[in-house]
Each structure stands twice: as C-alpha cells, then as structure tokens.
C-alpha cells in the first residue's frame, strides 16, 4: 500500500486525570473508509477530533497528507483539507443554507462569489436538497441539516472526511437519507473516518472496522472478519450488544 494519508503515532490525551487516549497508533490510507466503534467513553470521538486538532493531544504525532499537526499554520492548512461532520450538525444558524456553504469557500479558499455559489448549488443538488438554498437551518429537518453540513464540508474539496456520530441525533427515517449520501461519497473513493454504530453502513462501505476501548485500539479488521470472528472477549461483548438489534 502507498503512503498513509493520516498517520497517528503514540498519541496520548488526558482530560484532567482521565487518560482518554493511551498511546494510539493508526494509519488511514487514501480512499479507505474506516469505521471506529466502541463503547461510549472509549475515546472514539476524541481520536477523530485530534485528527484536525479540534482537540489538543498531550504526546505523540499526527501527520495528515504530509503535514504534521504541530503549529497553527499547519493546523489551519490541514483543516482546509479535512472536512468534519458533527453529531449536532453545527450549521451556522444566522446564515442561509447557501451562505453556510459559501462562507468558508470565500474566506478560506478565497474563491470568487460566483464560483463559490456554483460549487454550493451543485453540492446541494448532490445531497438531494437543491430547493433549500435560501432556507435558514432552523427551517430544515435534522436529516436535511446534516446533509447540508456534509455539503458544507465537501465545498472545501477535502481530501479526507471525518464523521463524528453523524446519525446519532437523527430520527430513524432521517438516518437513511444521510447514510445514502455517505455511501455515495464512499463509492466515489473519498477517504473517510467515521465514528458510528450504523452496522448497515459499516458492512456496505467500511474497508476496516476499528474497535476501541479505554483509549486503545483493541482490534481492527474488515467488517466481515471482525463481526463474525472477534478476537477479544471485550469486542465480542460489545458487538453482541449492538449487532443483536
């Protein structure tokens, strides 16, 4: 395999006395879809948030596409190329959907407004809500908001997309529309790191499933292997709980 696009080496993170990440190593390769599962408090979201340095880590090294995350300039450079989707959508509530998609393109990428608008409208079409360009986020359903959030991240032409429990705050009906967008993205070859317990999506799209517990990666394998034949007792227990329904 070629060079990893994300390389995480020996990363430690403490929240006060809590050791949230305990010397974690992980490589993610170009075009790979990695799903991270694990019990709550196991450090999945923290790990994801370290990749674009929304969370500071105390020791270790993370390199994204050749850029080490060690100073403010590099961190901003990495963030430009790494899209992130949050559990609570975090759309800019004072802006219309269109402006949500255009803001960072103009401020960060310095694209002229006509170009930014074209990109935004094309992406809204892609996520299936071309008619909502003029709406405010509060006027949209949760599923629509999350699709706008995905489009907002895509508007920056990211090399990697991070998804932090993108469907956890959604009604079952809306989960499907968001997962469809994510599946389409995976099919296009987007590199994705996803924290999610959506097993259907994982089976269909994930190349690798990573099981985390207590700040460590306990085991990782393709979904088929991990789900049918987990090596650790802890993994077995956890998967037993989430696969049973």
């Amino acid at each position, binding site marked *: 395999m070629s060079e990893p696009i994300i390389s995480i080496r020996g990363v430690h993170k403490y929240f006060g006395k809590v050791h949230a990440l305990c010397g974690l190593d992980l490589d993610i390769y170009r075009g790979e879809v990695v799903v991270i599962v694990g019990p709550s408090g196991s450090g999945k979201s923290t790990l994801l948030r370290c990749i*674009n340095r*929304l969370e500071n880590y105390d020791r270790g090294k993370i390199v994204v596409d050749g850029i080490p995350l060690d100073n403010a300039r590099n961190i*901003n*450079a990495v*963030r*430009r*190329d*790494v*899209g*992130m989707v*949050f559990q*609570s959508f*975090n*759309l*800019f*509530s*004072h802006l219309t959907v269109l402006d949500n998609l255009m*803001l*960072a393109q103009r*401020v*960060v990428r310095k694209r002229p407004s006509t170009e930014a608008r074209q990109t935004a409208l094309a992406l809204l079409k892609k996520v299936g809500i071309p008619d909502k360009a003029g709406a405010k986020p*509060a006027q949209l359903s949760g599923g629509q908001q999350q699709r706008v*959030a995905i489009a*907002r*991240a895509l508007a*920056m032409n990211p090399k990697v997309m991070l998804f932090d429990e993108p469907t956890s705050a959604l009604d079952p009906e809306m989960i499907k529309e968001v997962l469809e967008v994510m599946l389409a993205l995976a099919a296009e070859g987007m590199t994705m790191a996803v924290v999610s317990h959506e097993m259907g999506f994982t089976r269909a799209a994930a190349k690798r499933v990573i099981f985390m517990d207590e700040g460590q990666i306990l085991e990782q394998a393709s979904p088929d292997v991990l789900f049918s034949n987990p090596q650790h007792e802890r993994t077995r227990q956890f998967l037993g709980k989430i696969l049973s329904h």
Partner: protein
Amino acid sequence: MLSGSMSTPDRPHIPKEELDHIPGAERSTRIDVWWWLVVLVVGITVLLLFAWPDPFMNIFKFVQDGIVITITVTLVSFVLVLIVGMIGGLGRLSNKRSIYVISTLYVELVRGVPLLVQLIIWYFAVPVMIQSLGKVWNLPSLENFQADPVVMAIIGLVFCYGAYMSEIYRAGIQSIPKGQMEAARSLGMTYFQSMRHVVLPQAVRVILPPIGNEFIALLKDSSLVSVVAVADLTRRGREYASIHFDPIEVWMLVALLYLIMTLFSARVVNWIEKKTKFER
C-alpha cells in the same frame, strides 16, 4: 409594526379583524403605546417653550449648544465603547493567560471605581502626571501638555463603560454554542475569521438589549462630564441658573430634554430588537 411580522414569506396572512381577537395581538399592543409617552413629553416641552417663552425659550436657546455637546459626547463615546468592549470581551475569553489577566484586571478595577471619580482622575490627575513625566524625561511636548476637556471626558467615559461592555460581549459570546466555533475552525477558518463571520454576528443579536440599555445609561451618565469643564446640557443649565436665579424652570426643562432623548432612544432600541428577533 404590523408589516414587520408579515415579512417572512411562509407566514400565513391573518386578516386584521382576526388578529384583534388573539390575546397579545390587539392593535394597541402592536402600535406600541410607549411611543405616545414620547409624544406626550415632547408636547409638554413644546407647550412650555411657546406658551411661556420667557423664561423657557430663553433657557432653551442658552442650553442648546449643550445639547449638541451631550449628543456628540454620547455618540462618539458609544462607538468607541462598542470597540473597546469587544476587545475586552475577547480578552476575557482568551486562552492566553497574560491577555486574560490584563483584561480581567481592567474590568474588575474599573467597575469598582465610581465613574465621577474616574472622570476627575482623567481630567485633573492624568494631565499633571503627564506634565511631570515630561519634566523628568525632559520632553517639552509632554511638559506643556494641556488636556482638552471634551477629549478627556470621552476617554473617561469610554474607559469606564468599556469595562461594563466587555462583560456584555463576554456573556454574549459564551451564549453561542461551542459547536459553531468548532464547525468554523474545522473548515480552516482562523480564530478571528470564525469570530467575525460566525460567532459575533450571532452574539450581537443576543446582546442587543443590554447594549441598548448601556447606550441610555451612557446618555444619562454623560451629565457627569459637566464637572470636568465640558459645556454639556447639565453644565449649561447650571450656568444659566446661576445667572438668572430660576432653578425650578431651568432644571425642569433640562430634565425634560434628557427625558426626550432617553425615551426616544429607548423606543429606537426596542424597535431594533423587534426587527432582529424575526430573523432568528
């Protein structure tokens, strides 16, 4: 007011007669009765001026340049207070310890000293300090420093009100969910870009009512500058009263003039609040 509530396109049109039957939507509340208070106070003032031109019109003519000074000092100070408050508020939220400590010291110290005392320090003590520093360092430009009353008064007001405004900004920024900043940062925007385009525009809507209150308080507190040789409305009133010995008429008119300005400002603030509420 009625048209304001109808501006959103998907809001159903409700006929006027029906609105009258909905509690809180009666025509009287929609017209905003407090505008009548403004009209009433203006009416009384105009009546006094024209029914008894002596002494009221004479007083008015004497103090009118003071009204201009009061309005100028208030408006200039307020614009500067908005800027100082924003810097102070951001400082109070800074991760950098030195910036946090400096802005916190500023806010806590300034809020603990009466405004009148601060104004006196700025006009009477600071110039002497500058002059003696000029002597020590042998700089004639500092040694001959002469304080301009209006400039020193504005500095004093801005310094004091900036501290209160810092706390308002801080509270407003803190009221915006963290996720907004995180989303902006995750798109590669810098801290200041995120503040300017995402957090502050939302925070300003939250803090508009307290900012309006600060404006009115500043307008009233600007009367304190009369003790540091600024010829504002209050000082001009005192000058007239000491010449003509008619304190009742003078201070009645001065109070009415302040009342017109504050009531009018309060209505404008209220109107802006209503306007912005519909956009949320």
